[in-house]
């Protein structure tokens, strides 16, 4: 039966076989350059990187390269610096995402209201996003530097500091430096995404609600938030993964110091690869980070699915 159907199909298709082949391969030809690049430069190194996690690879040691099984992971389980970095990553990611999201949402709500000069204001408040991350890091490191920046002097005048010192070298508060820089840099992303979502909410819903006498807060709670929920879920998920991998600001501002107080897992991996040149160990840490992030993403997706099924 299948034979006859096949033959029948072929008779219907009057294109010569060269033409059919060309048509079928067309989408592959279009995607080939992008795919080849991704496979050669990202997928192959990813697989190689995973294999490094089980090998002894040190750049300056020509005798390294052997297979050592789980030895890196055993070292890792006893590595106190790694646990500190893990704790710092939670703190860095949680505080950054929460503050970026909260201030981004407020900004989007403010910009959703028409006013004179909105276009200009929008361009200005979104500008930090265009600043290269290394420059944002340096810029804030300078602002926190008592020699050249105003912030320590302001904190001193407010009585929050006993003398104008550098917050980045204070073990207790150092993490706030990169977090503030990250919030400054990341607010625009949330504001842009949430603003786009806000503008797609039908306006008549609000009119109907205010005719019914709903207060601003009621309208926000029962119209705005439900409409924004899917965008919020996706952006928060993406940003969490992205920020926990984002080492630039920390590498530039503190280099993980003082005394590893600002070292996150991503910057720890970079330090191991770049300074210690221990590629095997760096890959083992990276693999652990990858597994943790995958688990987190799965958890969020499952949670969302359960909530959707309930609702």
């Amino acid at each position, binding site marked *: 039966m299948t034979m006859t159907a096949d033959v029948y199909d072929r008779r219907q298709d009057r294109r010569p076989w060269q033409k059919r082949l060309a048509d079928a391969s067309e*989408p*592959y030809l*279009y*995607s080939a*350059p*992008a795919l080849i*690049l*991704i496979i050669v*430069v*990202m*997928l*192959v*190194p990813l697989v*190689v*990187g995973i294999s*490094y996690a089980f090998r002894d*690879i040190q750049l300056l040691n020509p005798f390294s390269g052997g297979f050592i099984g789980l030895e890196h992971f055993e070292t890792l389980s006893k590595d106190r610096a790694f646990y500190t970095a893990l704790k710092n990553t939670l703190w860095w990611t949680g505080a950054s995402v929460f503050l970026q999201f909260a201030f981004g949402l407020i*900004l989007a709500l403010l*910009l959703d209201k028409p*006013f004179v000069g909105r276009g200009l*204001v*929008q*361009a*200005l*408040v*979104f*500008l*930090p996003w*265009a*600043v290269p*991350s*290394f*420059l*944002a890091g*340096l810029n804030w490191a*300078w602002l926190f530097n008592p*020699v*050249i920046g*105003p912030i320590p002097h302001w904190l001193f005048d407010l009585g929050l500091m006993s003398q104008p010192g550098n917050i980045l070298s204070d073990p207790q508060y150092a993490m706030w430096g990169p977090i503030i820089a990250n919030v*400054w840099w990341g607010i*625009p992303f949330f504001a*842009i*995404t949430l603003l786009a*979502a806000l*503008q797609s909410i039908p306006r008549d819903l609000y009119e109907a609600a205010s005719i019914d006498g709903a207060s601003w807060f009621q309208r926000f709670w029962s119209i705005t938030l439900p409409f924004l929920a899917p965008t919020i879920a*996706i952006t928060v998920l*993406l940003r969490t993964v992205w920020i926990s*991998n984002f*080492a*630039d600001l920390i590498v*530039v501002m503190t280099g993980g110091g003082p005394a590893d107080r600002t070292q996150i897992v*991503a910057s720890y*991996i*970079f330090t191991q690869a770049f300074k210690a040149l221990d590629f095997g160990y*760096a*890959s083992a840490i*990276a693999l652990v*980070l*990858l597994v943790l*992030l995958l688990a987190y993403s799965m958890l969020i997706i499952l949670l969302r699915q359960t909530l959707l099924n309930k609702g």
Partner: protein
Amino acid sequence: MKTSLLPTIAHRLAIFAYVIFALFPLYWLFKVSLTPNDLLYSEGVRMWPSRTTWEHYSFVLQHSAFPTFFKNSLIVSGSTAVIVTICASLSGYALSRFNFRAKYWIVGLMLLTQMFPLVMLVAPIFKILTPLGLTNSLTGLIVVYTAFNVPFATFLMQSFFDGIPKDLEEAAMIDGATKFTAFREIILPLTLPGIAATLGFVFTAAWSELLFALMLINGNNAATFPVGLLTFVSKFSVDFGQMMAAGVLALIPAALFFLLIQRYLVQGLTAGAVKG
């Protein structure tokens, strides 16, 4: 319905606070870059120095390696942006217009590349590129940056193609044009805003990249701006005026591209976020 005055004032004040917060660090960068060295410490926290000078800029342009860094960054970011946009237009078009068996695998692969930590690739890429002579070379950086940026750019271009009605190229094909001619002559010109946005995104991303540039480049000849500035900072951390002048110069191309693509940001990011 008359809007009351108090909420309006609160709204404007809040907007004002955001603008100040967004611009103050950049303002400070610019201010210090104009402050003469002898006033740097005595007038540390003043909002504007009593004298200004452009000498830091002329020093940076004439007596340092920054013009080389600037040129290297321009070559790397420019080439990356052009190559990525070409690849992403093709693959974005394929994802937008064709239904083929491997489509979901391709989308899945591209999403995967957005999820895993790029830091993980630092060591293997270094090991792979060294025997090929691609470390310490601008070509190596261009190849790496191109691959990193292709997935997001593909989704971006796909969403722009999705916005163009299919009838247009079908009409052209009835008139005897091949699909590729229709793509080149009809669809691409209509996607020019999308192409501009993609170019801008990728240029800015490549201009800012730090970790791989630090790892793959050593020495001044092939250093890009981030690496150059960071080396400069760790070597001569007292020449604040010059560093900030260099910082302002590094900001200019990124800010220009930002102004160029600003209009498409809301559109492009929404598309990217929904796809992600």
